[in-house]
């Protein structure tokens, strides 16, 4: 039985043309970039404040919903819609930090459950306000790029590109600006940072605002690729969890590497072994990382 299955897989692999395999790889890399886009906000908030923001997936969904409302229903121009959504998410994040995270500083269990509460509130409100019908944002960049026999829709390429820009931008902010320096300081040692005159409250607020904005932007750029419904948050956070477990909590490089890695594993796995096996494969990788390197591929324990 097993030998037959192995034969079948081998036959399948060898019968697949190089183009097919390359297409699979391309799909994997682009999907990986989309995963990075999805997970980045979660990484930032954990990285700076050591808070696992369970509401992350719902903010992602909110970004997608808002782009539907603002860009499609209200017909705002894209250049106005994007900053508006980012700003809204940032404000929500800042309010959440101020009203909830700050109150629960130090009580990690309560804090975690509070983020679960926030996610449930956002989710149920979205179902009630936006309704259950799936919504669609028309392609901003329709068309497919065909190069060397490989096809890739422009929309996805653009989103992948934006993902990379965001990673770069985040690096720049965290490592090259004063606010970023302040963030890294409070991550390292909050007491000392405060003693050195850093307004830790303000910096925490900024970090969460930025994290929420990143999550929402992720939703915005993924929206035209798939359809939108209020339930998409759960899937987003599950994927984000998997990425940060594998990449390392709070580690930007880890998110980058893990995102691309999982994207490719899923895509090539589905191509060569079938969708079910690919699904299992991702979990296997996750277990392996948790057992052999629990801090993630790039993390420090």
């Amino acid at each position, binding site marked *: 039985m097993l030998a037959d299955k192995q034969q079948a897989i081998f036959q399948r692999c060898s019968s697949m043309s190089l183009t097919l395999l390359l297409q699979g790889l391309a799909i994997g890399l682009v999907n990986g970039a989309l995963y990075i886009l999805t997970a980045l906000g979660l990484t930032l908030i954990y990285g700076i404040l050591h808070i696992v923001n369970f509401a992350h997936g719902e903010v992602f969904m909110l970004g997608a919903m808002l782009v539907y409302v603002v860009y499609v229903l209200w017909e705002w121009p894209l250049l106005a819609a994007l900053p508006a959504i980012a700003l809204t998410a940032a404000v929500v994040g800042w309010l959440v930090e101020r009203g909830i995270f700050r109150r629960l500083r130090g009580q990690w*269990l309560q804090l975690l459950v509070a983020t679960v509460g926030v996610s449930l*509130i956002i*989710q*149920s409100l979205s179902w009630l306000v936006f309704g259950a019908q799936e919504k669609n944002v028309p392609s901003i960049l329709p068309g497919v790029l065909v190069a060397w026999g490989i096809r890739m829709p422009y929309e996805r390429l653009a989103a992948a590109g934006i993902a990379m820009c965001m990673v770069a931008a985040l690096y720049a902010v965290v490592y090259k600006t004063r606010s970023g320096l302040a963030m890294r300081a409070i991550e390292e040692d909050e007491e000392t940072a405060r003693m050195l005159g850093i307004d830790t409250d303000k910096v925490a607020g900024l970090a969460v605002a930025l994290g929420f904005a990143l999550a929402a932007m992720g939703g915005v750029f993924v929206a035209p690729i798939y359809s939108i419904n209020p339930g998409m948050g759960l899937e987003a956070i599950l994927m984000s969890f998997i990425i940060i477990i594998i990449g390392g909590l709070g580690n930007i490089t880890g998110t980058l590497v893990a995102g691309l890695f999982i994207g490719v594993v899923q895509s090539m796995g589905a191509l060569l072994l079938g969708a079910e096996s690919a699904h299992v494969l991702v979990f296997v990788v996750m277990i392996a990382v948790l057992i052999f390197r629990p801090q993630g591929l790039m993390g420090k324990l």
Partner: protein
Amino acid sequence: MALVLMPAVATTYWMHIAIVVLLNITYTVALFSVLRMGYLSLGHAGFIALGAYTCVVLTVRLDISPWWGILGAGVMSGTVAWGLGAMTMRLRGIYFSLAIFAFGEIVVAFFRAFDWFGGPSGIANVPRPVFFGHALNDHFSFYWLVLCMSLFFMALLYRLQYTRYGATLLTLKTEASERLAQSVGIDAARLKTATFALSCAVVGTMGAVHAQYLMFINPQVFTFLTSTDLLIYAMVGGVSHFWGPVLGAGLLTLLGEQLFSAGYWKTLVYALVLMVVILSLPGGLVSLLDRVRDKWFSNLRN
């Protein structure tokens, strides 16, 4: 006492509610025994599912008596939890939680993947136990089973808290105090793993009972959302006391059943209740009762 008298006066529907409430209370109390140690399990539902599936497979696929099914469920969950615990309890805080979360997802995906376990559609016609010739096929008789098992486990976990074993567990709450405990010769690792295993054995056993109640199991019955539900019950009730989780689970399950047809409204109300309690009463509802009790006593004294 009310619990014992209920079947005499209540309708079948209330029996259904009572059964669900008791199941949730037991799950939450078991989760609490892990929370007390300073560990957050985000995948307890995975162990409930493990127990449920073990029982179903034993009774439906292997034709073993449902009583052994229940026992087998507990043994399976407990053993797997012991192994998992041994591997993961050295991870602190969020890493442990994510590992257990991963486990929960994997368990469900595993049962989903194979037809022998029913695959995505699950297994139906799960048999119920037969008590001295009388099959527990209606809500009333099944209630007795659920009641006895819940009370047994609750009593067990309650008493354990007040033994030396239980008190020792409190010392493991933070890393620093754990190290201190170890320095006086307490085998922290063994203790933690044992507690985790016990907690999972309890939820696994009740999971089996739950599956027998539904007479059905499939991968969607116990998910990550179930784990978060249990967490919410514990937090709303309060994690400073044993009675906190009991209160939280009982209250919220009843509330949930009442708001049943409301779908999203139910989730919204749950979440708002949760936020209000967490922000204003970090000790949970049970701390409110404490305050009331203290005030009452101080009034008596005066």
